[in-house]
């Protein structure tokens, strides 16, 4: 059974803008999927519809057998706890320490009072420490997040998602604000998590070469429609051109050189 199923998902902003145009695909447990496409193609909207940060206009999303668009209140919160999200701008509370930010990943499991007071169990704290150590942030554990580098911040973001013990990670342009070497560390980390724990990873990417290198499957999106859905090796330059439209001339040249090398 697939973990995630999208069926004719459509999102409209106002009367004019069609962000997602009847998108359908399904994701199996343990897959590493990259969604590629130009800016404004609807990639971010697509991810946010899956954990309902954005409501879909029509169509159905089924996650782990549950229909997502109708979820309300506690059921919606329970749904969100099963999906970790990683953001382009890390979205940390900069004034708080690394471990406090990581523990925020547990808030979905708390009742109102525990949530307000930030009461975490010993076990949760130990788990948070373990994840922080795995991601190589032991020395930063009690530092404030505004003292970290971009790559370190993104690892805190990953730790916060992992401490949720999610079934799936949604990564929205996780390396778009990072330098190449930090970007490699982050992508390697995501791949390692996917391989060792079997957590499904759905990652929005700008960089086609990164997507081709890491993903087992590519979904190409343009103007809210799926243009390509298949393995990376079957993705032709013509199809990349189609996904990115006319703006991709240089990009394609780049890729050709890469393939030649």
């Amino acid at each position, binding site marked *: 059974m697939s973990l995630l199923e999208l069926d004719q998902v459509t999102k409209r902003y106002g009367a004019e803008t069609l962000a997602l145009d009847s998108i359908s695909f399904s994701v199996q447990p343990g897959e590493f999927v990259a969604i590629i496409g130009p800016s404004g193609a609807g990639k971010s909207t697509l991810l946010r519809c899956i*954990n309902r*940060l954005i409501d879909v206009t029509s169509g159905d999303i089924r996650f782990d057998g549950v229909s997502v668009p109708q979820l309300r209140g506690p059921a*919606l*919160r*329970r*749904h*969100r*706890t099963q*999906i*970790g*999200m990683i*953001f382009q*701008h*890390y*979205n*940390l*509370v*900069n*004034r*708080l320490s690394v471990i406090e930010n990581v523990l*925020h*990943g*547990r*808030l*979905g*499991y*708390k009742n*109102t009072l525990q*949530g*307000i*007071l*930030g009461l975490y169990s010993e076990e949760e704290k130990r788990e948070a420490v373990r994840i922080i150590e795995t991601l190589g942030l032991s020395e930063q554990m009690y530092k404030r997040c505004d003292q970290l580098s971009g790559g370190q911040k993104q690892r805190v*973001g990953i730790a*916060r*998602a992992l401490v*949720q013990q999610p079934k799936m990670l*949604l990564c929205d342009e996780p390396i778009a604000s990072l330098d190449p070497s930090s970007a490699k560390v982050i992508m390697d980390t995501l791949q390692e998590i996917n391989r060792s724990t079997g957590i499904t990873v759905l990652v929005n990417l700008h960089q086609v070469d990164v997507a081709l290198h890491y993903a087992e499957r590519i979904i190409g999106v343009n103007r809210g429609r799926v243009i390509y859905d298949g393995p990376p090796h079957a993705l032709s330059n013509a199809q990349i051109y189609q996904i990115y439209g006319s703006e991709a001339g240089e990009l394609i040249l780049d890729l050709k050189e890469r393939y030649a090398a």
Partner: protein
Amino acid sequence: MQPDAFFRRRRLQSALFFIAIVAITYGGMVLTQFDLVQGLGIIPRAFAWGVVNFVPDERAWARLPRILEKLQETVLVAVASSTIASIFGLGLALLGANTTRPHPWFSLPARAIASVFRNIDVSVWALILLFSFGQSGFTGFFALFFVTFGFITRVMVETIDEVGIEPVEALRATGAGYAAIISQSVIPACLPQLISWVLYMIETNIRSATLVGILTGTGIGFLFDLYFKNFSYGSASLVVLTTVAAVLIIEAVSNYIRRTIL
């Protein structure tokens, strides 16, 4: 147009403008029978009179305990009204800010309420409240409360929106509830600014409280009014001096707190 003609017109405009200002000023002086020479001449005499009459005399020093007691009362009212109003102001700001409002409809009413409370001056509030509470400490308390409430709401709406939606979005994605998102992400992110603004309002309110006291017949303002109208200028002066000292001390303390938390 030729450059010459352009600059001639410019000079003419400047000259006319200058003449108009002089005419308005002179007209005003004639209407109010203000004599500039006499006005300036009076300044040294005013100083001399002040030095003679506003030096606290022996009677004034005897009244010091009573003055300090009233000063303490005034400072406490200012602190209490500032802090309590800030709590309510923060609550309304959370409803009004774009990133934390429960529904888009909340934004406009919240901002409108803040605007009304803030734009009515503290002395006007005191006069309005005199009708409801008479000459009691409540009038002053609520006058300061309302202005602080409006001010804190306004600045915190801006602060919350400035801190940004990113951490809020991240916590929503983890499944956290509204109350947890506010207390774990919005409040920690805004706390330094909040404390800084509350301290600022306490400083401002101690100054305002003195004036409000004159209107409402309470606290240190009442004492000043009483002594001044009884021609006990020395005692009135001591009231002013202790108030200035209190304001300076409070400002020093709040600057220290600000440096420590920021």
